[in-house]
């Protein structure tokens, strides 16, 4: 994945650098605006991490594609310029009207167009996943996120209530509010973990793409498993916080442990994904080796 990088700039690199400079002129102000607003909220706090990962991934994939002798560079100016025009229009509207969806979203058609213009369809096709991954960086409007989060919130609330009732706790539920003992907890956005679900899904897909499993089936299974893993992790988190509140009061439940529990469970879920993947891999190679010995 990582090879030695020789940093040696020649005159031929200057146009590349100029283009990267222009990209920074466009999007560094965007990042600054986001860092002062949306990236501070629970809903979008995964933004900077996913952005850095996306940038690295672009560079990683591009180097691999350019190093491949089978890929031919054939510029596509018509499609390229059309997409660049679209991207820049979105950027101008988005930036001047403070509409982050357009401002950040413009990066996708803009980069796509630039790549098609300069490097052609073959190279761009090879790095398609990096563009797909960029979607996870773009902040969605609150209303969209609410619609996507609501089913997960209700599912997590339902699961948590069921689990608590199973163990005999005095628990009731109304929508996304859980009543336990004399306390009530609101399962909010952060608890429902769209933020962590999104990031988890994104990082999971990235991990799979980078490690390049041969089996499409295993890739699919892993991608699908991320949703129940996130659901489980969040139910455990809500149940834990409900129990803390029940036994130690409101302040304990809303204090330091609240933030900490989120991070711990996110990391646990990530470990689960990697662990599950290793398991799938070892099962696959075990079966392969058995087939070989049986065949021989």
């Amino acid at each position, binding site marked *: 994945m990582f090879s030695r990088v020789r940093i040696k700039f*020649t005159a031929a690199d*200057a146009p590349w650098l100029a283009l990267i400079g*222009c990209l920074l002129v466009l999007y560094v102000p965007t990042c600054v605006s986001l860092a002062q607003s949306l990236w501070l909220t629970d809903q979008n706090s995964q933004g900077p991490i996913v952005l850095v990962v996306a940038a690295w991934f672009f560079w990683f994939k591009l180097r691999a594609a350019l190093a491949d002798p089978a890929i031919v560079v054939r510029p596509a100016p018509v499609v390229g310029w059309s997409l660049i025009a679209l991207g820049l229009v979105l950027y101008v509207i988005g930036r001047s009207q403070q509409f*982050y969806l357009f401002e950040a979203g413009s990066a996708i058609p803009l980069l796509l167009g630039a790549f098609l213009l300069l490097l052609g369809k073959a190279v761009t096709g090879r790095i398609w996943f990096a563009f797909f991954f960029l979607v996870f960086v773009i902040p969605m*409007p609150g209303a969209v996120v609410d619609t996507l989060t609501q089913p997960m919130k209700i599912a997590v609330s339902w699961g948590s209530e069921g689990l608590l009732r199973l163990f005999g706790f005095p628990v009731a539920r109304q*929508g996304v509010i859980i009543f336990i003992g004399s306390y009530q907890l609101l399962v909010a956005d952060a608890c429902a973990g769209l933020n962590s679900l999104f990031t988890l899904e994104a990082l999971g897909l990235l991990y799979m793409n980078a490690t390049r499993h041969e089996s499409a089936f295993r890739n699919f299974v892993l991608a699908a498993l991320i949703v129940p893993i996130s659901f489980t992790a969040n139910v455990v988190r809500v149940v834990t916080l409900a129990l803390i509140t029940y036994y130690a009061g409101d302040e304990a439940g809303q204090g330091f442990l609240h933030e900490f529990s989120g991070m711990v469970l996110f990391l646990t879920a990530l470990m689960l994904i990697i662990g599950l993947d290793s398991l799938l891999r070892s099962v696959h190679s075990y079966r392969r080796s058995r087939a070989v010995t049986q065949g021989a």
Partner: protein
Amino acid sequence: MDKSSLVTWRRAVPLCVVTLLASLSAWVLVPSAVIAAPARLEQKIPAAFGGWKVLPDPTVQISLVPGDDRTAAVAATYDEAVMRTYGDAEGHRIMVAFAYGRNQRQEGKIHRPELCYVAQGFALDDSHAKDIASDLVRSRSIAARRMVTHSRDHAELVSYWIRIGDRFPENAVESRLQILGSGLLGKVPDGILFRVSQAVPEDLPAAERERVFDRQEQFMVELVKSLAASDRHLLIGNGEA
């Protein structure tokens, strides 16, 4: 593959030029926010009008902000918020809430009650549009909405309208489009939420519900009429298309 042949100055320069032009345009097209005088709703909304009087012991109302992580950001966009409970001689109580923001932006605009009620644990049973045709607004009717919600303890009937600039957007998409359109013409509009709600028994029959809603609509129109003519634009805009 030799990098130097891929991107030459001939290819890079047009791209750099349009990019820098875009950056400049974005800066030029930023609409100017108006530093208007404060609305001072508290003083302008009368304490008594047409049979209704402000009650000294107001009912606790559902908050005007979503009540989650975004609360601080949203609350910062409201310049003024007024909450009162009015009562009449027959013993009816109506809760009234105003949220006013001088500069409506994509990420900082008035929030819809559908969002705030649900975020604070209410279930939304119904929400539909109900245009208010009256002589108040010259060329159009007011696009208001009626909501039926319930929580563990009680049900609430809510009527509201949201004014942004001189129009009444009916949903979040229309709000965004209007702020976008206004902004591209160089203006940042102001906005207000005018919300009226009443607690009712959960098993209220539909006909009774309609009567309660109609009374709320009448209340809202009377309240607007009770304002001085020069102040009414705060609630209903200036009546132009």
